[in-house]
């Protein structure tokens, strides 16, 4: 049974168990709030979401008032506006007025609502209370008690979502403040989310603090490549530099959270990048041009024949990359020495973090690459190289040292006729390469990842690749063209059109169909 009610003259239908604020948000209306969060329990302590109900003398908080049939709600009546202003004035009594130096400025609930609903002149003549500044609650979370409005979102997050209970609300009245329990630190693997949900500048990220003002940042929708979960994220960047990642709501995948390992994984986009195609000349790698580098590999392939080519690839590439690589390996180069190397499994938990630290292990297999290699398969490839059956090795996004050992890789540098390393970052083993192809990071290209649930999700290019780096699908296209194929793809989307025709599970898929929240083929079939 659904309930019918009227909000601001608009008749809406709401779920039976909805509260007014939920009903309003679902109908596309906003009610100002601080302590209410759709994924946390109701606290009802900020009093900002006041609404007027017909037939009731006092204003009610919409976050904790269940909807009822024939309810008539006003969210902007003079009484509500007056009440909201009063609440805001109380919240700001002890709040320092130093927005220019506060790191939250630009994305602060107090600032925004003051401009929308407050706009009074301060009547507070007394000395504001002074609290603790720059308190390190954990490795990344910095707390400023003067700026806190005690909404307890962070406390509820640690109690309900991570269930680690590090934070509590201590003391009373003016002295009330958030703190960690004695002997505890806010160091759970999801602690960074407390900074995201803090509506004011009380919790800030040590990593992001003071790096840039938020109004310079642009947002690009993407997917975290840190593990097989594929948490939906927004990349916050300015001038080709990524400053932070923020989780994006997707109830099917990550709700509205992400882990700290994923959150701080962005640094590889900014540092230690391979920016130029390189070619070995004597002992050193020298910068070269793309045509020269491609020709070098193509000559080696033609010299030894396809079966002498080994390909070892990490499942870090998009579906588009993997599809073209699988086609390149089987139809163009014609080799059977293809190995998918997923790296060492990492930590796993029951919430978001997956042991498989690759974003696209499932998608890579859907696209025709082999299943993740066992130790045996790796050894077999190593033996093939040592016995001289494989003379050309094409390593794509793989930490060769972790996969085969430093000594082996150093030996291969002389043993192989051509060792091609394709990566976006300076990986261990890179220095032994004969040819280096710089590839674009996930923030610099379009594409799709398929997460462990079988959900195809979209990544978007936030900015152009640094230096001369190219998205992997473009490198494969250039290789195929140099090997005499008539491949031509103008964009990653064109590759997906081919996938939609060739791979049955992905039939009919397009970027429009995937949208912002992804598309799950397991649900469809």
């Amino acid at each position, binding site marked *: 049974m659904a309930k019918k009610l009227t909000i601001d003259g608009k008749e809406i239908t709401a779920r039976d168990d909805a509260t007014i604020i939920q009903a309003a948000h679902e109908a596309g209306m906003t009610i100002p709030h601080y302590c209410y969060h759709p994924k946390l329990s109701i606290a009802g302590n900020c009093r900002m979401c006041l609404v007027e109900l017909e037939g009731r003398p006092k204003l009610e908080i919409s976050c904790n008032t269940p909807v009822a049939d024939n309810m008539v709600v006003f969210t902007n009546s003079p009484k509500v506006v007056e009440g909201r202003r009063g609440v805001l004035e109380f919240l700001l009594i002890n709040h320092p007025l*130093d927005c220019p*130096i*506060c790191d939250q400025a630009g994305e602060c609930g107090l600032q925004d609502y003051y401009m929308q609903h407050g706009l009074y002149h301060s009547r507070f003549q007394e000395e504001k209370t002074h609290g603790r500044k720059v308190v390190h609650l954990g490795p990344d979370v910095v707390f400023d008690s003067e700026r806190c409005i005690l909404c307890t979102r962070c406390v509820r997050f640690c109690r309900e979502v991570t269930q680690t209970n590090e934070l509590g609300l201590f003391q009373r009245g003016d002295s009330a403040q958030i703190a960690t329990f004695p002997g505890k630190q806010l160091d759970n693997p999801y602690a960074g989310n407390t900074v995201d949900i803090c509506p004011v500048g009380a919790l800030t990220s040590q990593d992001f603090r003071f790096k840039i003002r938020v109004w310079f940042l642009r947002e690009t929708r993407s997917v975290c490549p840190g593990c097989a979960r594929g948490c939906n994220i927004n990349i916050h960047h300015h001038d080709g530099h990524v400053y932070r990642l923020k989780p994006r709501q997707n109830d099917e995948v990550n709700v509205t959270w992400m882990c700290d390992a994923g959150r701080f994984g962005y640094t590889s986009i900014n540092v230690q990048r391979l920016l130029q195609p390189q070619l070995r000349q004597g002992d050193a790698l020298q910068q070269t041009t793309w045509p020269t580098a491609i020709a070098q590999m193509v000559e080696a392939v033609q010299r030894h024949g396809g079966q002498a080519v080994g390909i070892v690839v990490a499942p870090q590439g998009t579906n588009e990359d993997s599809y073209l690589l699988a086609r390149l390996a089987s139809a163009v180069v014609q080799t059977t020495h293809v190995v998918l190397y997923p790296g060492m499994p990492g930590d796993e938990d029951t919430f978001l973090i997956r042991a498989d630290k690759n974003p696209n292990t499932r998608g890579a297999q859907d696209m025709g690459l082999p299943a993740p290699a066992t130790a045996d398969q790796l050894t077999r490839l190593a033996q093939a190289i040592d016995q001289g059956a494989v003379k050309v090795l094409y390593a794509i996004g793989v930490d060769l040292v972790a996969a085969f050992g430093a000594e082996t890789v150093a030996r291969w540098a002389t043993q192989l006729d051509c060792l091609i390393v394709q990566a976006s970052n300076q990986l261990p083993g890179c220095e032994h390469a004969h040819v280096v192809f710089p590839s674009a990071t996930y923030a610099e290209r379009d594409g799709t990842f398929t997460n462990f649930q079988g959900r195809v999700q979209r990544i978007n290019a936030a900015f152009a690749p640094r230096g001369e780096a190219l998205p992997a699908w473009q490198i494969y296209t250039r290789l195929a063209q140099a090997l005499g194929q008539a491949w031509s793809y103008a964009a990653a989307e064109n590759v997906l059109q081919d996938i939609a025709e060739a791979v049955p599970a992905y039939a009919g898929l397009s970027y429009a169909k995937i949208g912002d929240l992804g598309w799950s083929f397991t649900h469809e079939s």
Partner: protein
Amino acid sequence: MQALTFWQKIYLPEILRGMAVTTRHFVTNLFGQRHTVTQQYPEQPTQVSERYRGRHRLMRKEDGSPRCTSCMLCATSCPALCIHIQAGEHPDPTVEKFPIAFTIDELRCVFCGLCVEACPCDAIRMDTGIFALAAYKRDHFLYPRNLLLGDDLPTNIAEGKAPNH
């Protein structure tokens, strides 16, 4: 349009009238009262108005530390995007942050003064009266924090200043 008369068509009377004005100025400036607007710069120093927007400088607190809190409102308001600030955590938690680096690209600057207007703590001013900057390299026009504070003197750059500042 009205047709020109014969005298207008040959232009000569107007040319002679123009020459008369020129000659009058020439003679009065050569022998009599001088009304020349030409300044003999740089031998003769230039006076500029008190509100003239010259090269920037950074102000200090009473304790001598930079007054700037690196709020970046100047960089935000700058239409030429010539202000680059790197903020650092200040040892005093009530101060929050301070500029580790504060660089103004004086070649990009359009001297509009919006940074001065935007600054909430009067940390940047353009009242130096310095209007002539000359150097051999573009890099030298990247004025670092200590030069703007007056700690360092310009070494690779020549600065011309109005004497009334």
